[in-house]
């Protein structure tokens, strides 16, 4: 790791320099990161990339004024000039009495290293291992049959260190690693070239699926896309694969933060402790999961991590409130943003849910679309399959799923037992009744 104990010294020097410039309240964060990517295609290495970077981020609080400044030019003379400019600029802003460093009491009782956020063996990984893994994925994908036009695969791994130091006593760091494997396959289908991918992410290399399994999955998914067509517009049951369902939770998250609430941009404003969702929906924000891709010991304010109920059997229990918007709203802060969003799974397998569909749609991925966090209106392009009497009839494309989140989540009829583990959003597959699908 390019980051070592010297970083505290570097951050402390910056803190002392700011003090000399008359800044009493400061939050410093040093990010450092190393990353390696190996992409292969057609039996050859397509791209090799390696990087190491480090930056200093400084939050300056001066006479009720606040600004955030970042630089990766850490040469002493340049850094000093940068901080001088930063202080001068901050002084010119308008006063905002809500901008203060967090109450140090919120820093207390941070969890320890039991979260296992870094793979101790990160630096022993060899380029030859990355290549072997990528080639194995790509070969397995290519072996899938004559329809394969192009198969590519790759791995990315990274180690990220965040060191946080504040003038009111916060001093800690967390180091995380992550490993990503992906395979993409494009199939021949006349002039069209339908494609799909398989991918997985984890904090430690050892738990990733076998490369050839990912390659075969990508090929099977792409093969199944051949011959896609539209269906008639109408209200259908829609079964969303776990991997795709993350999109829907991102929409919810955009309405669940303190800024959206304070700025009157949330369709969930006023819905706390009300039945805003189907009773089947229970969501917990859990930063304490070992190896969790969203796990953390402290958040962006240094607030110590704890488990929080977000939705309990359909009742909205909590928003994500950071220190600043908490003060602005006059309510206690929770935490500034999601860690691991854990959606409580159901008991039935995806295939069981699929069998229950009389005439409906399976969504394998969303494409484009957006959601209005103020009104809850959303509209999303979808890719998937048409299902009749529990059987997949043909792949579908050029369809939109539309609705309003205040209604849509009450149509949630079942959750699968298959939580998606390659993301900080751990959702199972979701079945919605009577969803509006637009097509031909």
């Amino acid at each position, binding site marked *: 790791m390019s980051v070592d104990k010297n970083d505290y010294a570097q951050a402390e020097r910056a803190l002392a320099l700011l003090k000399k410039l008359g800044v009493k309240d400061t939050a410093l964060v040093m990010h450092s990161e190393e990353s390696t990517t190996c992409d292969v295609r057609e039996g*050859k*290495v*397509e*791209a*090799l990339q*390696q*990087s*190491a*970077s480090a930056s200093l981020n400084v939050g300056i609080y001066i006479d009720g004024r*606040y*600004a*955030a*400044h*970042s*630089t*990766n*030019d850490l040469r002493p003379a340049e850094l000093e000039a*940068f901080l001088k*400019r*930063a202080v001068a*600029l901050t002084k*010119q*802003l*308008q006063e*905002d009495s809500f901008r203060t460093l967090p109450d140090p009491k919120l820093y207390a009782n941070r969890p320890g290293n039991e979260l296992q956020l870094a793979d101790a063996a990160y630096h022993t990984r060899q*380029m030859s291992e990355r290549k072997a893994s990528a080639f194995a994925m790509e070969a397995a994908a290519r072996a899938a049959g004559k329809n394969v*036009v192009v198969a590519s695969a790759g791995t990315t791994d990274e180690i990220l260190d965040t060191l946080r130091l504040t003038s009111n006593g916060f001093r800690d760091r967390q180091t995380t690693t992550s490993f*990503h494997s992906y395979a993409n396959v*494009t199939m021949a289908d006349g*002039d*069209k*070239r339908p*494609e799909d*991918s398989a*991918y997985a*992410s984890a904090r430690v290399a050892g738990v990733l699926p076998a490369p050839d399994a990912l390659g075969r999955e990508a090929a099977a998914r792409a093969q199944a*896309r051949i011959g896609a067509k*539209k269906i008639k*517009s109408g209200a259908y049951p829609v079964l969303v694969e776990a991997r795709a369902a993350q999109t829907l939770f991102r929409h919810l998250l955009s309405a669940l933060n303190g800024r959206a609430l304070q*700025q*009157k941009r949330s369709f969930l404003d006023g819905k706390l402790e009300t039945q805003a969702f189907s009773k089947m929906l229970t969501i917990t924000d859990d930063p304490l999961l070992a190896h969790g891709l969203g796990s953390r010991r402290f958040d962006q304010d240094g607030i110590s991590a704890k488990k929080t109920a977000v939705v309990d059997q359909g009742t909205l229990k909590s928003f994500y409130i950071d220190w600043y918007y908490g003060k602005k709203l006059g309510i206690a802060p929770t935490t500034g943003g999601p860690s691991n969003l854990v959606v409580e799974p159901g008991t039935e397998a995806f295939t069981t849910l699929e069998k229950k569909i009389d005439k409906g749609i399976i969504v394998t991925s969303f*494409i*484009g*679309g*957006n959601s*209005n966090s*103020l*009104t809850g*209106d959303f*509209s999303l*392009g979808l*890719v998937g399959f048409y299902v009749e009497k529990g059987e997949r009839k043909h792949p579908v*494309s*050029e369809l*939109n799923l*539309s609705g309003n989140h205040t209604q849509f989540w009450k149509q949630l009829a079942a959750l699968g037992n298959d939580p998606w583990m390659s993301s900080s959003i751990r959702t199972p597959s979701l079945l919605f009744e009577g969803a*509006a699908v*637009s*097509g*031909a």
Partner: protein
Amino acid sequence: MDRRDFLKVSVSATAAMAAAELMGMRAAYAGTMSSRFGLSDELLRKTLEAALSRGGDYADVYCQYKTFTNVSLEDDKVDRARTGVELGVGVRVTKGDSTGYAYSESLDEKALIKAAKIASEIANGSPTLAPKSLALEPVRRFYRDDTKYADLDVAKKIALVQSTNAQIKAKDANITKISLSYTDEESEILIVSSDGIVRRDFQPQTSLYSSVVAEKNGRRETGGYALASREGFGFYTQERVGRLVDETLRRTNLMFDATQLKGGEMPVVLGAGASGILLHEAIGHGMEADFNRKNASTYASRLNKPIAKPFVNVVDDGTIENARGALNVDDEGTPTERTLLVEDGVLRTYMHDRISAKHYGVKPTGSGRRESFRYPVLPRMRATYMLNGPHKREEIVKSVKHGIFCESFSNGQVNIGSGDFTFFVKTGYLIENGKLGQPIKDVNIIGNGPDVLAKITMVADDLVIDEGGWTCGKDGQGVPVSQGMPTALVSAITVGGKA
């Protein structure tokens, strides 16, 4: 890993060359940039030598110094700012279609040679000769190289934001929340290639975004507008800022009358301007040569074939003066140009970087771009738009019995292989019996690229290049782009909506 490509929102092309650069076509490179990067010719040459030490075909060194300032307003106060500095050097080595890439944030010799050695490992042979000397080549300019936002007193930027806020408040009592965000950025780049050619550029960009919440009878709606350019601070004329104020209010108030329509397949009229998002998604990404050389694009088998009506012409253009998508040189040092993608309805030219140009045996089109020194080059769009056609806006709207008119957009996406693409309409209108009717909002439109291009049945003569702040994403890299469109009709496409 999601590797699909997206776009979000985040004129005439004349330009003068600076006199100094007209003199002496191959002025010796005399360390012009040394004040900023402190890199001698000798060190740059040594870095190229290390990059080619295992027999790469080509190598380049990309030096960048970027600064930005953002000031934002919330609840009537400019009470937050962000500034930043990014400095680094990227070293790239290509061997056939393969790329090795590494970067350094430190400018010392040891770090540069280390990065070069890492990048060199894409090749596995005996060394290729590095250039003996370096020569600075001139570039044609489509934006000024002396716009120094950083030297401008931040008080002026704060005053612009405050004045915009005051104008919005003065004009509409229903507005309850106003968010404004002003950003400027300047990036100084130096590209040294193993051909011995050095090119430099100074790339400024600025933007002002508005987003407001209005409340009427207990109901809330939101809307906004954006202005973006490579011009200096003088870009923010009273007229432009006034348009941002008026459009923000008009679009937001429109929402109170808007409904989600009944979805399905219908004729869609694309309003002049930001509707170019359709071109960006339906054809732009699919015409980037990297997807085609990999045979992964739906356009890979369609070059020189008719794909649209003869009055359809589509260009990707780096030469629109001061446009957000304008470039003097691309990020591998190739001078920019205006590339004809579709000529009289026939698919003509892909957008090339050096790798794909070599693959196809053609000249690069100046389309090699990267987000920063941290990323390798990819073929990318600049300003993508359709040329004027033979129809009139009025006759296009009149021709539609039941359909929609699209006015403003927030984002789009495409699957390159299948050609399926989407764009999200923020505001628009129903068209009933040839007349604009009830406003509509927040609907996604989805279609297939080649299929939709063939269904563009009318194109008007009112081309507008949108002034908004669009950012295009590909392989995790965001670059500023522009887009434009004359009013046009797509005879049938799937519009999201109620069942």
